């Protein structure tokens, strides 16, 4: 009975990690949306240096997995965008594998509301293969609050997650916040920390030992309005988290439809 309990716990905590796009897209969202007639193309590259080494319940280990995620985000209007993800994994013994796809519509509070903080709301739904995540269909709703104060930048993403298909379908809503604090050392170089967590089910959080807890040291390079560059190194101190990950995001903004000077 005790052995069964630990197997269940182990699977459960892996599911938690995988549900939040796992280590496919590691990013705290800002409240701004992509402008209309613009496509943001981002490549998220994450490599798990120290992660889970065993196959658990048919799910591949994360150890030395190289995740390459293509994110395409198109602006709809001044306050809405839609994003689309293609998740892939590269790993010795498994080759290059398609993992799944997500779609993510997002709206934000218009500037005319004059809110003292940036505010937007993202929702994301998608599929991932069972060998990478036992919960194959998941849904997330992510409020986004951010604020720049002088050289400091703060962002909070208190995301809620729900499994639609998979072992956790009856687990209710999980709480998975993300936090970012950045500092502008120069106009082009910012650095700071990012925090990602999954506390487990709302109202019945997992024990800390089993929660996902990740801390990243990151840097953002603001070399051009057309480019987005972020990289960092993160540790996961709990048993439910991959222990050492490096991540990088390179994004390029493409605009079309010449905007007239009289618009």
């Amino acid at each position, binding site marked *: 009975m005790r052995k069964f309990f630990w197997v269940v716990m182990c699977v459960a905590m892996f599911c938690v990690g995988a549900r939040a796009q796992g280590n496919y897209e590691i990013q705290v969202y800002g409240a701004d949306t992509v402008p209309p007639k613009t496509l943001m193309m981002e490549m998220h590259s994450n490599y798990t240096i120290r992660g889970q080494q065993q196959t658990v319940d048919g799910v591949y280990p994360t150890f030395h997995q190289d995740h390459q995620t293509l994110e395409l985000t198109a602006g709809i209007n001044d306050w809405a965008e839609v994003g689309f993800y293609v998740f892939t994994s590269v790993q010795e013994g498994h080759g290059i594998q398609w993992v799944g796809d997500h779609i993510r519509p997002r709206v934000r509070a218009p*500037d005319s509301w004059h809110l003292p903080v940036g505010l937007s709301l993202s929702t994301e739904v998608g599929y991932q293969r069972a060998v990478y995540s036992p919960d194959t269909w998941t849904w997330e709703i992510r409020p986004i609050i951010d604020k720049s*104060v002088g050289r400091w930048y703060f962002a909070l993403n208190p995301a809620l997650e729900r499994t639609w298909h998979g072992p956790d379908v009856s687990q209710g809503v999980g709480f998975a916040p993300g936090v970012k604090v950045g500092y502008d050392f120069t106009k082009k170089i910012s650095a700071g920390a990012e925090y990602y967590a999954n506390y487990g089910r709302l109202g019945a959080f997992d024990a800390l030992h089993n929660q996902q807890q990740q801390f990243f040291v990151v840097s953002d390079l603001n070399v051009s309005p057309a480019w987005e560059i972020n990289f960092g190194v993160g540790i996961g101190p709990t048993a439910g988290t991959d222990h050492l990950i490096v991540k990088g995001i390179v994004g390029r903004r493409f605009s079309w439809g010449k905007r007239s000077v*009289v618009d």
Partner: protein
Amino acid sequence: MGRLTRRRFAQMSGLAAASVAMGGVGRAAELREQAGSAGLVEPAGAADFSLEIAPYLLEASPKRRFQTVAYNGQVPGPLLRMREGREVSVTVRNRSKDAEVVHWHGLFLPPEADGAMEEGTPMIAPGATTSMRFTPEPAGFRWFHTHTFAGGDLRKAQYGGLHGFLMVEPKENPAAYDREYFLALHDWGGSMTGGDDGSMNPVYDVSTINGKMLGFGEPLRVKQGERVMLHVLNSSPTEVHWVALAGHKFKVVALDGNAVGRERVVDMLRLAPAERVSAVVTMDAPGVWVLGEVRKHVQAAGMGIVVEYAGASGKPKWVQPQDLVWSYEGFAAGAKPEQSGGEVTRIELAFDSKFKGHGAQEKWTINGKSYPETEEPVLVGGRRYRLVMKNLSVDEHPVHLHRHTFEVKRVGGSAELYGLRKDVVLVPAKSVAEVEFVAEHPGRTLLHCHQQDHMDLGFMMVFRYA
């Protein structure tokens, strides 16, 4: 209808002077009609003119109201008409909660009256009243406005309603026109927004002409065949504006109140903050038209006014221009005047910004320093100076020199220009503008970017006289 010049009009009114203070009721009423929504200062006791600074609720439209501060309970403030070279007395009563100062923009006043604390003009404390006497010069379309610090409050200083028209009538006025209107372009409801270049700049909810959004103010009423003089002021705290009158063209006769070197007919006007354009429009297209901002999003925010011909009706028509066209060069004299030249002392000024974070406004510098640490160049009376203004930043800057008129000599790589006299010049981004002036008004003289957010963050310097 026979042509009525301003001079002839004054004669018919039995009033040699154009100052309202010197006019009778009939004169004031006629001028009020001509001035459109701009009011007039009535004689006030011992003073020729009286201004009261007090809180005011501006109704740009029934749905867009702004609590602000205004002169004499109106936005824009009253139209003051003075006579060139004739001394006037002005009383200013401050009923607002903040110390105030009135800057007489474009006049050659001594520093203690010019209206800038950086030059030495005393502030008017809340509840206090001050009186001044001065002799208005030079003639032309001037204006008056607050010259205070807004800081982070985008309702204060020039973000608010403290601005008004000042017309200094020349001793002789050969301008031939039948009617004149004064129009002030302004932006309201500002908030700071981060830009792609990493800086923060104000954006606005509402834009108005004479305090009203398009469709909510009184129309400019004209008659077919009239020549209408439009005196347009950009009193916006930060924004450059482009205006056109659908179905009509403008003949520009003066910039910043000074006759241009060459009159020119144009499709649209561009005005940087604090700039003025005086232009004659021949009313030869009967109908109901829109005079408005050329850029769609600004006109949609309200910047427009209806122009209505007598007897015409229907929905106001707008013809959307497809480009923004304007240059200073076209208004310069065609040839170098014979007496120009002489020794000129160059003063090099470099404008730049210092990054203070994506969540903060930039600090502005002149030659690497922000006011009050900026240099204080010393001018020698009677000497001619050339300001070589290198704009290293990615923003345009409307640079204003107090108490002097300068001649624009070069803008953005143009050839040498002649006869273009102004008191504000828009220095293009990443470019150079050069102006010349004669140091003939002793006393501290302020030079600054007229964008409120820039002057608040250091874009000012003072010249001293030896």
